[in-house]
């Protein structure tokens, strides 16, 4: 009994620290959510057009493709990696899907996504087996996949067959009032949350980013997790690409240029740390929505030039990271 009491004392003395730590990590993780709520309230009060079904679904639909890419990026960054190839993979999938649209939506979707999954898997294999930094490997994939997309199309965009209505439904259709891409986005994030929170794979993704050396010593199969996240990132980028092609009615080989940076920004703003191990799909969704709605506000405002919007985005990204960094260091 005496022994138990000593440990209770011990736990007691850590409790205050835990509480303070929680507070800091709450702000760190939920700072973006607080900001999102703030922006939402601001926009609702200021613009009549903001809180309308049309505008909200519009914002969601516009951000659904980036949202999917950012979800894949979240998995990669949680392991402490990075994936610069997402934008190019998105273009590859769009081109493939547009070409296959005539064979039906299912075939186009599956083959396009399978192809980018393989390319993502290739990223993972090179990173794991050849031990080259993810930055370099995915940079090369970014260049190569863009080349593939351009080569396959002769550097022209591929029009989707007018007759393949089921394919265009993916990006343009609605289910009830809900645009299909939004529905897919919601399902993807739901599954993403489930995987990250409630499956071994998900927990091992966190473990790998937390402390690779320790995870290895604890017997984790690091290679399998690495391959898994890059393949998943490829798959989700591919899905985003198919949706984009469907929405635009064309597979553009130049689609998704610079999206890797947008996705990284969304992930980081959401509160997932680049060093890995902390954050999650919910955080990224908040990050995507926050950046998306800020853009929507800029547009509703109408007086802020798009150039200033870029400036503000960069500054905002930096401000959020500086804030997170000083908070986590204090902890």
């Amino acid at each position, binding site marked *: 009994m005496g022994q138990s009491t000593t440990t209770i004392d011990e736990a007691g003395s850590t409790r205050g620290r835990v509480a303070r730590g929680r507070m800091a990590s709450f702000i760190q993780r939920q700072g973006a959510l607080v900001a999102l709520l703030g922006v939402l309230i601001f926009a609702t009060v200021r613009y009549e057009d903001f809180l309308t079904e049309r505008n909200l679904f519009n914002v969601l639909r516009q951000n659904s493709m980036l949202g999917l890419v950012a979800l894949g990026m979240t998995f990669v960054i949680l392991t402490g990696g990075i994936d610069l190839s997402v934008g190019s993979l998105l273009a590859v999938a769009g081109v493939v899907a547009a070409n296959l649209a005539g064979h039906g939506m299912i075939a186009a979707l599956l083959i396009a996504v399978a192809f980018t999954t393989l390319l993502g898997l290739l990223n993972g294999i090179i990173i794991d087996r050849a031990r080259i930094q993810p930055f370099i490997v995915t940079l090369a994939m970014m260049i190569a996949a863009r080349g593939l997309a351009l080569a396959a199309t002769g550097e022209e965009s591929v029009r989707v067959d007018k007759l393949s209505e089921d394919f265009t439904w993916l990006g343009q259709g609605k289910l009830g009032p809900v645009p299909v891409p939004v529905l897919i986005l919601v399902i993807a994030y739901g599954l993403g949350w489930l995987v990250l929170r409630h499956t071994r794979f998900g927990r091992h993704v966190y473990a790998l980013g937390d*402390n690779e050396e320790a995870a290895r010593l604890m017997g984790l199969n690091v290679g399998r997790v690495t391959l898994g996240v890059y393949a998943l990132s490829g798959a989700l980028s591919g899905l985003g690409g198919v949706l984009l092609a469907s929405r635009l009615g064309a597979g553009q080989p130049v689609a998704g240029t610079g999206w890797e940076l947008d996705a990284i920004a969304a992930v980081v703003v959401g509160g997932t740390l680049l060093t890995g191990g902390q954050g999650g799909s919910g955080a990224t969704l908040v990050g995507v929505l926050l950046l998306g709605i800020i853009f929507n506000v800029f547009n509703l405002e109408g007086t802020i030039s798009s150039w200033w919007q870029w400036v503000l985005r960069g500054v905002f990204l930096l401000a959020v990271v500086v804030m997170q960094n000083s908070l986590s260091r204090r902890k």
Partner: protein
Amino acid sequence: MESITKSFSGVNALTGVSLTLEPGEVHALVGENGAGKSTLIKIMTGAYRRDGGEMWLEGRRVEFRSPDEAQSAGVVAVYQEVNLLAFRSVAENIYLGREPRRFGLIDWKRMNREARELLERLGLEIDPRTTLGDLNIALRQMVAIARGVSFGARVVVLDEPTSSLTEHEVSILYDVIRRLKAEGRAVVYISHRFDELYAICDRVTILRDGQFVATHTLSGLEKIDLVCLMLGKRREELRQGITRFDHHGVGQEDAEPLLRAENLKRGRKLNHVTLQVGRGEIVGLAGLLGSGRTETARAIFGADPLEEGEVYLEGKPLGLRGPSDGIRAGLAFLSEDRKAEGIIPELSVRDNMTLAALPALARFGIVSRARQREIVERFIERLGIKAAGADQKIRELSGGNQQKVLLARWLCKNIKFLILDEPTRGIDIGARGEIQALINELAATGLGVLMISSELEELVEGSSRVIVMRDGERVAELRGEDISQDSIIRRMAEGDAPEAQPAGVEALRD
């Protein structure tokens, strides 16, 4: 384990070491740096493969190819720097890789319940949902132990478990160890703190230079004998003629010392340490690993921030905020970890040697090649550095030559005070003697030297005074005739007691 042999790149790190663990035994493993303790436990836990010898577990020959296999077989190590996941919960850390599942999803309820039961069995009341990083180090170690127990560990290796624990936390650890013992598990306990070994361990195995020295029951072994075994000395062993130091330091403690460190305090590692060094004096700083000797050296140099205390050079407070301040004031520091904190591996001998002197060698930022060459050639010649040339990369040199280059890094500047942390560790005999002679020579020119060493001969023969540290505190200062390996060992092991009771010294000498 029997006749375990391990070598790296043709060098034997372990030769024919044997270790037998009984169920329900706490077995201490001791030895100075490089004795092979960590190599042995890494082999035992599957982190390294052995080159020779055999291992048995409960009568069966075993072969571990990875930590994974060792832990499923029941051999688990808890390292000094706890190898767990700081951002994950306690339960997740315990069950990583074996999370209980239901319908393919993790069964959190069951995982947390089982973790709680496991922790309670060890007498720990930790909420398994707590994030590991929010626990203090002591509790993190307990979690690591619990993880081991959850594998049904037969052997639990604790590598310096108490190096950063408070007394109270140590007592919790002891409770857990006693429970492991009561459950019939064997515990290997590695520590440099003798009080703890005697408090908790049944037997001790001593290693030295990769060799097995002895296994003893602790109750029948005096502390002083244990230290002698660790260092490979006989009690009555002769006391000179091994090093190249030829006198006890010419300098004297001036009325106004060259350097004075007052009340240095930094966490538990450094507890109000005060010392002073005169011009031309070599002061030895003795203590076992973890006694605070390195912390003292780093604090004086300005490498680590101080909570309290101040360093004075020639009577002036330095107010150091970083190493560059210390260097500007005329201090120099040779780190014990040559690889991590000394050499810049990819740079040449020339660049490594002149790194600290560049401000003096450069005009408008352009380094004077001529002056650089002059210095580098002079020191290569003077220190007998064996290198293919000034442009050879330092990582290609032997340890002794690397060390000479690092010494030269300071000697080519106008320094007033030199701090040496294990200046001859890992260096072959020849170079070792040369470095010792050099230190001597330097002190003769009026430099103050503070020298940390695990080589007692070095301290005895090189220093005019020896300050002994233990558990972050300065426990004794020996001078003149009082300096002997014997007296240093006794203070390192037992603190200041003998000074208070001179009779005890005689008693031990018998």
